[in-house]
């Protein structure tokens, strides 16, 4: 056997041989693995509930395993709804806009805030932009009411003092897609910026130094250094966001809109519909809704990952 083959074989063997490092790494990862086992994988047996007519006969475990099997019966209500099309359109439509804005805007602002001359000012801006994250949707809904209420709201008061008639905001669907998108962006902007800021911070400064010496302008530095370095993170966040394209923020679409009938067509998403139905539906039906969202989410995330891998294999998540 030639030297080269020998070396290759030895490397191959060592690639498959369990090394000391592997044991140590396993020990390092052990606590977290146990966490996953206890909090994620053990409860997964609950998925069967979607296929059963849940009845109580004793303890929970015996309930789950002894309840009669009903196949896909629990799923019927999801697919026989007349409004299924509107709901799916809303869910996916809003999410696509959210995904695009949720990447473009935080990246843009993260880069911009790093370019400010006055560091202290940028700190202040950042803190202020983070505050919306802490107002729960219930509170935001109350603030929304403070602005949009027919007789007491700030907007209508402003209109009245300008001589116009008050508007019944909660019953005018035309404005709400914009309201909802604005609110979603508003709430998550500070949070989204953090990831990109952290990435930019950890970039090696020598690249920039070299660029400056070569005469690159700020725009060129951004375009040829910063953005490519952010690519990995952006792609990863994009794929993850696509995986959640069937999930929406319940608080935004249900609590802020006050469940107004007029706004049904522009604000009802899958999660809102399931929540409202849950009041009359059974445990099995609720589980079936979650299951469908999971399966669809899985399909989309795998699809997104596959597409990304075709374009740029290094960026793919898996």
């Amino acid at each position, binding site marked *: 056997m030639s030297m080269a083959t020998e070396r290759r074989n030895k490397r191959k063997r060592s690639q498959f041989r369990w090394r000391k490092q592997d044991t140590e790494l396993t020990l390092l990862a052990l606590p977290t693995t146990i966490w996953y086992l206890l909090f994620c994988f053990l409860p997964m047996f609950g998925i069967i509930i979607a296929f059963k007519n849940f009845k*109580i006969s004793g303890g*929970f475990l015996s309930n789950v395993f002894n309840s009669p099997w009903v196949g896909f019966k629990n799923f019927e209500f999801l697919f026989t709804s007349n409004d299924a099309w509107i709901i799916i359109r809303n869910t996916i439509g809003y999410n696509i806009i959210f995904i695009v804005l949720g990447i473009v805007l935080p990246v843009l602002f993260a880069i911009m805030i790093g370019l400010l001359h006055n560091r202290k000012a940028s700190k202040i801006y950042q803190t202020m932009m983070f505050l919306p994250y802490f107002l729960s949707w219930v509170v935001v809904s109350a603030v929304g009411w403070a602005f949009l209420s027919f007789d007491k709201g700030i907007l209508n008061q402003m209109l009245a003092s300008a001589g116009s008639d008050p508007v019944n905001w909660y*019953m005018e669907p035309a404005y709400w897609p914009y309201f909802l998108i604005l609110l979603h962006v508003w709430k998550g902007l500070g949070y989204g910026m953090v990831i990109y800021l952290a990435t930019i911070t950890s970039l090696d400064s020598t690249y920039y130094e070299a660029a400056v010496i070569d005469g690159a302008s700020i725009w060129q530095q951004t375009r040829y250094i910063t953005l490519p370095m952010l690519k990995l993170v952006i792609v990863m966040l994009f794929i993850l966001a696509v995986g959640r394209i069937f999930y929406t923020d319940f608080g935004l679409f249900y609590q802020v809109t006050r469940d107004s009938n007029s706004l049904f067509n522009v604000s009802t998403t899958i999660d809102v519909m399931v929540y409202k*139905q849950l009041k009359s539906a059974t445990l099995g039906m609720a589980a079936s809704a979650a299951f469908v969202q999971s399966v669809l989410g899985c399909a989309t995330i795998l699809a997104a990952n596959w597409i990304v891998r075709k374009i740029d294999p290094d960026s793919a998540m898996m």
Partner: protein
Amino acid sequence: MKKSWKLVSTLCILTLMAAALAACSGSNTPSATNEPQSATDAPKKTDAPSKEIPTLVWWLIGGQVPNNFDKAVDAMNAYTAEKIGVKIDIKVASWGEWDTKINTIVNTGEPFDIMFTNSGKYSKQTAMGAFADITDLVQSETPDLYKLIPEKVWDGTKIGGKYYSVPTYKDSSLTQYWVYDDKYVQKYNIDINSIKTLQDLDGPLRSMKSGEGKSFYPLPMTQGEGLNGFFNTYDDLTLGFAPIGVRTDDGSRTVVSVLEQPDIMANLKLLHQWYEDGIINPDAPTKTENDKGRAFFAAQAFPGAEVSWQINDAVEKYSMVQHFGPIYTTSTIQGSLNAISANSKYKKEALKYLELVNTDPKLRNMLAFGELGVDYNNVNGEKVIERISDTWPLAAYSQGTFFNLAVTKGAPEDQWDQVKKLNDAAISSTVLGFALDISNIQTELANSQAVWDKYKYELITGASDPEKMIPKITAELMSAGMDTIMKAAQEQINAYFK
């Protein structure tokens, strides 16, 4: 760097340990010892006395738990331990969390003994098998409790012909009133006693509107309520789904599509007129909380009830006129029920406790008002009390009968006798005692509810035009399966009342 990391991690571990100790001791002080070791273990708490006194878990609905809650419960336990050898551990789930919390507890089989429930959940929970059949037990073990509550009221808890809960005997029959702020009655010379129908209200409401101005709404409404009691003439078969019902006086017990009935149609048209003319506030379909003090509203009540409204709304006088009822329907009786867990190890003891609550005034007052001397004081024995705090979180209507409960100072002393009179005079809906079995129509029900939810707020507040909307809504409802539900309901009714 290395050293400081070691330091930081040691500090963290120490903090964690301290936190864990604090948390453990913090969560041990309340009387709850209900840490389930296995799914079916019922909680036991042995006390200093050598006799083993069981502590039952009772889930009640309420508000924020005040600091003296444990002391108040201890006082109750001292009393009941002596009298019937049973203690209670009251767990409070607050209004907003009730749905999620109770669903989780029932679904996961978490142990409890007694649980408050009402018409929204009762049939579902019973269908799941969560509650014990107490039909025989209540008659043999607690005959006083059984005799205390009239048979009509027991009928309201029947599912499949058996009782699965103890109904709360209070203003269990529905009596509907129209309530006027007296200042407007005087101002516009409204003869409130001559107003019998909705149409009769038209004139007075319009004079109020033209007299008070553009931004005054004589009949303010909210999203969920609309005009309270609007569908009272139709028994909803505990579905909580207004479009299906049986007319309460219909001897043939025909299940009908309520929205299409001529009387409902006419009233909805009237509401719509009022909405357009500014008698109802334009944001009614989206408004969740009522403003304090309304010129006119409708409500289920009993004589003397206006006192609490007057205090709460800071209105000098409300004048009430009875205009419908009293009537017993399954829904009105199921406004407050207390059920016993099918897995409870202390069914007898639980019933005995409920019996004591419903017969013993001292315990009843403690449960309803709180700690004697801190939350309330006796003014006339246990018959009249005076509240001195407003932090007690539990609601009297959810616990037990009103008829051994004290009257609060300021309300008419014979208040409960008046209520009893109403109950005794009440007629029954023709389908009283019937509970719809929804196990085969779940999908249709869920889908029909979804359609109704889309339109209901605007319809019941008069915002949408009934002539245009009702055909549309009915068509959608039918395609969602409402006709299947109606057919199934009719078959079940016919079979039950054969």
